[in-house]
């Protein structure tokens, strides 16, 4: 029989921590700080609207780009929260999570050989989506000393004549890093000068602590070069509803809508109705969750300081990214031993790119009680490591 599979797909490495996942799922009494989704249930008024839409029999397809009502609410929301100005008809597409939007953007913008700059550590889908779209991923390894922000110098160093897209994954999963307005302005200069496009993944935009998120497309001249990707998963605790969106120049959104039409048809209808409610009446839920995350973030950082675990202060998302370099073992080994010896699951930094070596991603999408229990185990493990040296 012929090989049924393509080389392109077979060459994509499976997630490096598959083995780690398997161990976790087989063990009892594991406390996990390994999730990448909110611990909150979707606020009830939003769930209720989803249920209501089913009761009313709204079980049909919506238009390919998404309910017009929802696209209008999205544009209003982006305007009031992030000073973005998008047209709901020509510049907005509702997708199945932010993930689909990332995939679509790469597919419609890349020709073979085009390069995509991807700052790591970052979420795991940019590299494979780029590869599948025929592009060539080009990694920029971010530095702990810059608090994992992307600097103008780093960017310039990696640009060549093939470079077409820059991915800006901020607020960042896994580091919790954010980019300030000044940081972004420096990047914007280069983007303009080198004629690049930007895929700005702002799925964690609502989760910044100590200042509002700055959206890249709101900088002068950047709107026509940027695809803004966002969604409801993190801001409104709606991961399982699978609903995101992309906003950008009409010419790009039109082609993304075309691919979306053939591959997906439309995002789930009842999720879309629920999302309308989320945007109309959900701002206070978002604020409440942000406050809760912020308290936990402070609590974790304080506990790390007390147990002597170095960590820069992350100002976004719901992750902290402490350094374990001083223990002289790899991230994988640290995470695996922590799991086996203390039954505490965290994600090794290397899951998000090789420059994540020496770091751990710890999620604080957990109640304070859970965090407290988990920190006891972490402390015990660290004391053991230090005692053994």
């Amino acid at each position: 029989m012929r090989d049924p599979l393509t080389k392109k797909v077979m060459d994509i490495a499976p997630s490096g921590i598959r083995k780690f996942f398997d161990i976790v799922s087989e063990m009892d009494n594991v406390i996990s700080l390994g999730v990448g989704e909110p611990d909150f249930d979707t606020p009830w008024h939003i769930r209720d609207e989803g249920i209501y839409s089913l009761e009313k029999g709204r079980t049909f397809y919506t238009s390919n780009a998404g309910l017009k009502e929802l696209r209008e609410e999205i544009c209003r929301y982006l305007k009031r929260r992030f000073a973005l100005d998008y047209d709901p008809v020509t510049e907005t597409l509702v997708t199945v999570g932010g993930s689909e939007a990332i995939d679509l953007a790469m597919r419609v913008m890349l020709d073979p050989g085009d390069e995509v700059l991807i700052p790591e550590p970052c979420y795991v889908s940019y590299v494979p989506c780029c590869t599948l779209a025929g592009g060539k991923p080009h990694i920029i390894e971010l530095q702990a000393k810059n608090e994992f922000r992307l600097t103008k110098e780093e960017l310039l160093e990696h640009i060549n004549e093939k470079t077409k897209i820059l991915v800006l994954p901020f607020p960042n999963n896994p580091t919790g890093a954010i980019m300030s307005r000044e940081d972004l302005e420096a990047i914007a200069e280069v983007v303009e000068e080198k004629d690049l496009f930007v895929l700005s993944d702002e799925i964690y935009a609502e989760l910044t602590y100590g200042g509002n998120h700055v959206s890249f497309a709101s900088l002068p001249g950047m709107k026509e070069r940027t695809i803004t990707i966002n969604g409801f998963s993190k801001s409104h605790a709606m991961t399982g509803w699978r609903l995101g969106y992309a906003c950008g120049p009409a010419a790009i959104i039109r082609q993304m809508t075309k691919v979306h039409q053939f591959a997906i048809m439309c995002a789930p209808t009842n999720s879309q109705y629920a999302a309308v409610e989320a945007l109309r009446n959900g701002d206070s839920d978002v604020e409440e969750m942000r406050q809760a995350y912020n308290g936990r973030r402070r609590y974790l950082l304080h506990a790390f300081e007390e147990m002597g675990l170095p960590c820069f202060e992350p100002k976004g998302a719901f992750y902290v990214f402490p350094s374990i370099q001083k223990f002289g073992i790899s991230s994988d080994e640290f995470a695996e031993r922590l799991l086996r010896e203390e039954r505490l699951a965290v994600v090794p930094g290397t899951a998000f790119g090789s420059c994540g070596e020496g770091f751990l991603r710890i999620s604080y999408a957990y109640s304070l009680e859970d965090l407290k229990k988990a920190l006891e185990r972490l402390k015990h493990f660290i004391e053991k490591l230090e005692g053994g040296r």
Partner: protein
Amino acid sequence: MREAILTFLEKNSRIDLKELAVILGTDEATVANEIAKMEQEHIICGYHTLIDWDKTSADKVTALIEVRVTPQRGQGFDSIAERIYNYPEVRSVYLISGAFDLMVILEGKTLKEVSGFVSDKLSTLDSVLSTATHFILKKYKDHGTIFEKKTRDERMPVTL
């Protein structure tokens, strides 16, 4: 700062003050000070415990009583409210807008005890025009807390 402290205390009055200070990004002395001041000012009026009595063997009956009254010259509803709330078996008294005036929440050991209070004490007050007593059959949620809440974390243990 005060509202932030109160929001936490309202959900968990036993929270460690040092911990609360860390969460709010301030120091323990500030939090302790604010709490002491709010106790003095009667903003914080007590630290109670939320109990699901149905899970115990104690006998308890709770009733909501709608009371229509005649307000008194110069004092409005305050004086009649005071006469009612001074009974120790009365847990809460609220002045209500709409079809009746006072909502009285009453706790007793038995139905008989509660109805006895209504007929002997409450209805016989001069300014009380009428009462309507509703007994609570089951408490689903109280003080923002759902009594039978699922607590298991059903998320996948590790996601990227």
